[in-house]
C-alpha cells in the first residue's frame, strides 16, 4: 500500500463516520460530572491554546467570572492571579470534546448539554446558549447580573432541561436538520427553524416540571432562536471524538479561534493544534460606530459546525444570513461550491431545495485545501476587544494552519512507510 492509498483509506473512514454518525442530544449535567478530564479548578476556553499573557480581555473576564462563580476566588483580580500561578487550569474546550462559542467558557458546576453519537459511541458537550441578552459570559462580561443568570442556569434551567430531554428519550439532531431543510438555516449563525423544531420536541416534556420557575424557563427557552447552535456543537463534538482516532487522515476534525490565533485539528493527529494568525470576520457591524480596529481576530469554537458541513460550508442553505451580513446569493453559492471542491463527502439528510437538492459538503481534506489553494469560509459573530459582539459575517480560513497540518501528516506518513518497509 502506498502512502497515498493509506491516506485515502483513512480519509474514507473519516468521511464515512462524518456522514453516518447520528448525534442525539441526551442530557444536561454539571460539567464536572460528565466532561472527561474536568476538575474543580479547570476552565475550558474556546480556541487553540494560548499563553496566559496573550489571552484576550473578554476571555480573561469570562475565565475570571467562571472562577468567581465556582467560588475559587472572591474577585476577578484574585482569579486572574490564580490563573497566572497555574492554580486555575485553562484548557482548550475542544481537547475535552466540548465546544465553547464566542467568549463562553465552561467551569465545573456549569450545566453542559451532552450529545451522544448513537452509531460510533462518541460523546460531546457544550454549554447552554444564554439567550438574546448581550450582557453575558458568552460575550466576555461578568458582573452581579451575569452571576445571577449563571446561577439560574446552574440551579434551575440546566436541571430542568436535563429532566425534559431525558424524559423525551433524546433529541435526534439529524432529524431536526432534516425536518428544517429548506427553511433557510445555515445552522451556524442562523437557526430559527432548527431552534423552533427542537423546542417543539422539548417543551412538552417541560410542562409538568416540578420547578416553581417552570413558566419562566419555558418562556426563556421558546424566545431563543439561536438555541440549536449549542446542542449541534455538542453533537459535532460527539462525532469528532471518533474521527480523531484515525492515523494519517488529513480530514479536519476541529477548528476554532482564540481571538489571536486560528487553529485546526486533523483526524490523523487528534487534539494537536495547527495555528496561525486569526482572520478578522468581515460582514456587518451591530453598531455603525464600530470599525475593524475594534474587533478581535476569529474567536470561538462555533466553527465546529463547519467541520460538520454547516455554516459557511453550506452558505447557500441560508441566503438570509448572507443578506444580513452585506453579501449576495452569488457569494453564498460560491462559498458552498468552494467547500464542495475541498470536501470528501456530502450529507444526504438535508438536501437544499434551491441548490438542486444537493446536501451539505462535509469532510474538509487539508490536502485539497492546500493543493487547490481553495480556502473554505466560516461564518461567525465577531467579538469586540472590549467584550461584546461587534458584528457578524464570514472569514476565509487561513491556509498556513492547513500547511502546518500537512507537514505533520507527511512526517507521520514517512515514518509509517518506513515501518511498513
Amino acid at each position: 500500500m502506498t502512502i497515498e492509498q493509506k491516506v485515502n483509506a483513512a480519509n474514507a473512514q473519516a468521511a464515512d463516520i462524518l456522514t453516518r454518525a447520528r448525534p442525539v442530544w441526551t442530557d444536561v449535567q454539571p460539567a464536572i460530572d460528565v466532561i472527561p478530564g474536568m476538575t474543580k479548578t479547570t476552565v475550558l476556553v474556546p480556541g487553540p491554546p494560548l499563553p496566559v499573557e496573550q489571552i484576550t480581555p473578554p476571555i480573561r473576564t469570562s475565565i475570571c467570572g467562571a472562577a468567581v462563580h465556582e467560588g475559587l476566588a472572591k474577585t476577578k483580580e484574585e482569579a486572574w492571579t490564580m490563573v497566572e500561578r497555574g492554580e486555575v487550569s485553562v484548557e482548550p474546550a475542544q481537547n475535552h470534546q466540548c465546544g465553547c462559542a464566542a467568549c463562553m467558557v465552561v467551569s465545573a458546576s456549569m450545566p453542559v448539554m451532552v450529545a451522544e453519537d448513537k452509531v460510533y459511541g462518541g460523546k460531546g458537550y457544550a454549554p447552554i446558549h444564554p439567550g438574546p441578552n448581550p450582557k453575558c459570559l458568552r460575550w466576555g462580561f461578568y458582573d452581579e447580573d451575569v452571576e445571577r443568570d449563571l446561577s439560574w442556569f446552574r440551579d434551575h434551567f440546566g436541571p430542568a432541561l436535563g429532566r425534559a430531554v431525558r424524559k423525551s428519550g433524546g433529541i435526534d439532531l439529524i432529524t431536526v436538520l432534516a425536518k428544517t431543510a429548506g427553511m433557510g438555516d445555515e445552522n451556524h449563525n442562523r437557526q430559527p427553524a432548527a431552534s423552533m423544531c427542537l423546542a417543539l420536541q422539548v417543551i412538552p416534556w417541560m410542562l409538568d416540571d416540578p420547578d416553581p420557575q417552570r413558566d419562566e424557563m419555558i418562556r426563556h427557552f421558546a424566545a431563543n432562536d439561536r438555541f440549536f447552535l449549542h446542542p449541534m456543537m455538542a453533537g459535532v463534538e460527539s462525532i469528532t471524538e471518533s474521527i480523531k482516532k484515525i492515523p494519517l487522515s488529513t480530514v479536519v476534525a476541529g477548528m476554532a479561534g482564540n481571538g489571536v490565533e486560528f487553529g485546526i485539528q486533523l483526524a490523523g493527529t487528534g487534539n494537536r493544534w495547527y495555528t496561525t494568525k486569526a482572520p478578522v470576520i468581515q460582514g456587518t457591524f451591530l453598531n455603525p460606530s464600530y470599525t475593524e480596529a475594534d474587533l478581535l481576530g476569529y474567536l470561538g469554537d462555533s466553527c465546529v459546525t463547519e467541520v460538520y458541513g454547516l455554516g459557511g460550508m453550506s452558505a447557500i442553505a441560508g441566503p438570509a444570513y448572507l443578506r444580513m451580513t452585506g453579501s449576495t446569493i452569488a457569494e453564498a453559492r460560491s462559498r458552498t461550491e468552494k467547500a464542495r471542491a475541498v470536501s470528501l463527502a456530502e450529507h444526504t439528510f438535508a438536501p437544499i431545495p434551491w441548490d438542486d437538492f444537493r446536501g451539505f459538503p462535509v469532510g474538509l481534506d487539508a490536502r485539497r485545501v492546500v493543493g487547490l489553494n481553495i480556502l473554505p469560509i466560516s461564518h461567525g459573530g465577531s467579538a469586540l476587544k472590549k467584550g461584546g459582539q461587534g458584528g457578524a459575517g464570514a472569514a476565509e480560513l487561513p491556509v498556513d494552519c492547513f500547511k502546518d497540518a500537512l507537514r505533520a501528516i507527511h512526517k507521520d506518513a514517512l515514518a509509517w512507510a518506513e515501518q511498513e518497509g
Partner: protein
Amino acid sequence: MDCEKILNLFRSELVVVNVGPKLFAEALEKQGYRTVQVDWKPIAGGDREMQAILDVLGGLD
C-alpha cells in the same frame, strides 16, 4: 495551401485563450476581443515545499 490556412486564421475573429489570472482576459475584453478563460492555478499556489509533500500524500485527482 498551408500558407492560406494560416492566413485564414489571422483573417478570422481573434479569440484568446487565457490561462491563469483573469485580469489579462478582462483587459482584452475591454478592447473588444473575445476570450475564453481556463481556470487553472499552480498546485499549492506554487509553494514548492507543499508540492513535494502533496506528491507523497496525493489526494488531488
